[in-house]
């Protein structure tokens, strides 16, 4: 009897999980089909490749944020980080013409910020939403002070720097998209097949339990903060390339865009639940909506209203499914 009971339960769970991503895919397909039908330009290869390039920024940051959310924390300072991380990059480029050095410095900056966030949350025990809200202000202000609100243009003329954000392989596949997929798959693998990955879920699922069986919760969360910030600064590098400058206004509102996307993708704000595939779909949905509405020349007012509406509906549908089982 227990076995029967058991099997029924598993069956149900299996279905739920299948359904969840499936549901997201459906909404994605519907949206895709809609724009395909309404705009002559949406489906042309050129535009599709643009979309890939455009979603790569929020997605790369989104992977990091998903990791963080899965282990039960959040980081809303990633928007300000977009501006911070680009500074050393472009300065190094202009100064030394070495892209490698620039990128390294950008990632290092990201790591540094991640370490600060991590310390604030794990050592000083400040809730991550608050700690990173503080950093969100502090970092943005710091950039204003440092730059005096004058953007730093890239004068190195480095072709490669231009290409990482704007270039395409075979005039179709954006470099940034390749980078995105590499990062996406690597971390999908890590989450699924490494002890570290599973422990992220364990910590997010129930930190006390994780602690009680000897998982170093602090270390796990700390590392997640660092990874999140480093990946965000990767997207900061791409953004800098797309903007051709380190810009004090870069990344304003980026944090909400990414949070909304991954949560839309089924990554739970309360930790322990979510997949990178879901996050990917979530980012795609929002990216396609932006692109598609643009293709249809929908004005900003309606863009805001429609996007907001779609976010609410998608999440609502997802919740409904969860309850239906």
């Amino acid at each position, binding site marked *: 009897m*227990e076995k029967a009971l058991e099997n029924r339960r598993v069956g149900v*769970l299996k279905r739920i999980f299948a359904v969840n991503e499936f549901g997201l895919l459906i909404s994605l397909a519907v949206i895709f089909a809609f724009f395909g039908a309404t705009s002559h330009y949406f489906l042309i290869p050129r535009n599709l490749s643009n979309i890939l390039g455009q979603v790569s920024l929020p997605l790369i940051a989104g992977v990091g944020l998903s990791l963080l959310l899965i282990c039960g924390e959040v980081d809303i300072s990633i928007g300000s980080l977009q501006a911070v991380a680009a500074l050393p990059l472009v300065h190094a480029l202009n100064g030394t013409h070495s892209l490698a050095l620039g990128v390294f410095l950008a990632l290092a900056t990201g790591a540094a910020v991640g370490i600060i966030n991590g310390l604030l949350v794990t050592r000083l025990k400040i809730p991550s939403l608050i700690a990173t809200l503080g950093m969100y202000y502090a970092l943005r202000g710091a950039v204003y002070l440092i730059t005096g609100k004058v953007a730093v243009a890239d004068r190195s003329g480095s072709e490669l720097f231009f290409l990482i954000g704007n270039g395409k392989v075979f005039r179709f596949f954006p470099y940034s998209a390749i980078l995105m997929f590499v990062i996406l798959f690597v971390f999908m693998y890590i989450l699924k097949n490494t002890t570290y990955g599973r422990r992220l879920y364990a910590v997010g*699922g129930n930190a006390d339990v994780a602690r009680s*069986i000897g998982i170093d919760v602090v270390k796990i969360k700390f590392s997640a903060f660092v990874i999140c910030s480093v990946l965000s600064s990767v997207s900061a590098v791409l953004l800098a390339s797309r903007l051709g400058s380190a810009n004090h206004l870069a990344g304003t509102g980026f944090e909400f865009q990414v949070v909304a996307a991954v949560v839309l993708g089924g990554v739970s704000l309360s930790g322990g639940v979510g997949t990178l595939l879901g996050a990917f779909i979530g980012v795609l949905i929002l990216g396609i909506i932006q692109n598609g509405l643009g293709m249809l020349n929908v004005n900003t007012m309606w863009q805001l209203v429609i996007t907001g509406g779609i976010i609410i509906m998608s999440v609502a549908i997802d919740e409904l499914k969860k309850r239906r089982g």
Partner: protein
Amino acid sequence: MNENGGYVLQVREIVKEFPGVRALDGVRFDLARGEVHALVGENGAGKSTLIKILAGVYAKDEGEILFEGKPAVITSPTDSLRLGIKVVFQELALIPNMTVAENVFLESFPLKKNKAIDWVRMNERTTDILLSIGLPISPRSKVGGLTVSQQQMVEIARALSHEAKVVVMDEPTSALSPNEIKFLFNVMNKLKKLGIGIVYVTHKLEEVFEISDRVTVLRDGRLISTKPVGETGTDEVVRDMVGRSITTLFPRTHPGSRTHAAANAPVLQVENLSTEKKLRDVSLSVHAGEVVGVFGLLGAGRSELAKAIFGLDRINRGRILIEGRELRSGSPSHSVKMGIGLLTENRKEEGLVLQMSVSQNITLTSIRELATLGLINRKMETERSREFVERFSIKTPSLRQKVMFLSGGNQQKVLLARWLMKSLRLIILDEPTRGIDVGAKAEIHKLIDELAKEGLAVLVMTSEMPELLGVSDRILVMSKGSVTGEFPREQTTQEDILAAAIL
């Protein structure tokens, strides 16, 4: 090795202090290979402190721990796991969203050469271990979907997965049905044969004498006695535990069914109740001044019935009448207005507001009565709650104390107080004494009796046979979501009940 008489674990003069309390005061305790050593005592006696020290959750202040004769340093959970000590706490240490296999190997997943998790091997080994303790469940199923007993087994499987030498079980049976308990005991015997020593913490004395070899009693942080079960008895142990002898565990001063049932109309009437969740065509009635006990194995639908009557779950068919008036389902607030109270089986999740004070928790349901025009009369609130704290002898430093700092028994009393402060017609108690020590148990049984005496209709869902036979006037037995038997307390035996329960 032999100089320590084959003891796998020895605890010497352990002392642990918390601000204001001396939780452990020079306690000795030792455990032989393949022995089941019961550890009993009222809440606050120091049982949980001791096992938390063994688990590496707390660090001891004084004394020493010998593991296999060698001094052992346990400063973190990892240390104790490395030694081979596995503590199975009441709040099971499982991650609901992860699979059985993952939970079994959570501390250290089997890896391939390239450091990647070897899912195949992990699942195979999990299946083997589960089969070795006779539990045929899929290693891929999510733990969140398992029954409590299955989840316990997953924890035990975890212990086996890294050859634990000592397994500590903290009230493992409190959430189990009789045949699940039998199953657990079988597993424990298997462990014994493997030479694993088991520390068995429980409140159910009958179990102590059924499964364990020796029993150690703690009280107020001190060691009272350690005896082989053969050389002692329930009364003696109880006396050691509470320091006095409890006259009776099940006082009954209320007249019971005979007078009422015939006389007045029933307070609660359930007619052919069916819900999506589980219940199939359930009918029953409870009269004022009557205690009706509902028995059933885990998954029989006891809790579901409680929730459905209270109006937490929508009902498909049938109806619920309170003194003849139909109850609107799916609206707890309406049920409370109608004078129904529900004490759910999980205190923390569905009962207490942990960061609220004791008095605020007590007055939560009846706060309206303590307010005029919505303004709370603080003076009255404190008086009333103090009155209940005294009447139920709830142990708390102050009314302002956050309820999260109280012991399980006292928390349960707080919840009872919450309902009794409101004038009810019917109260539904789901596992009212789960995880509560003997003393508190007796007090709660006494309260149940008093409630009936005051003319309340009481519906008690329980999986503990003694409790069932002790408190109820009438006994309903459930199985697979429907009522499969009804017995007056006087003429029935455990056998009849169990027979009906597995129908």
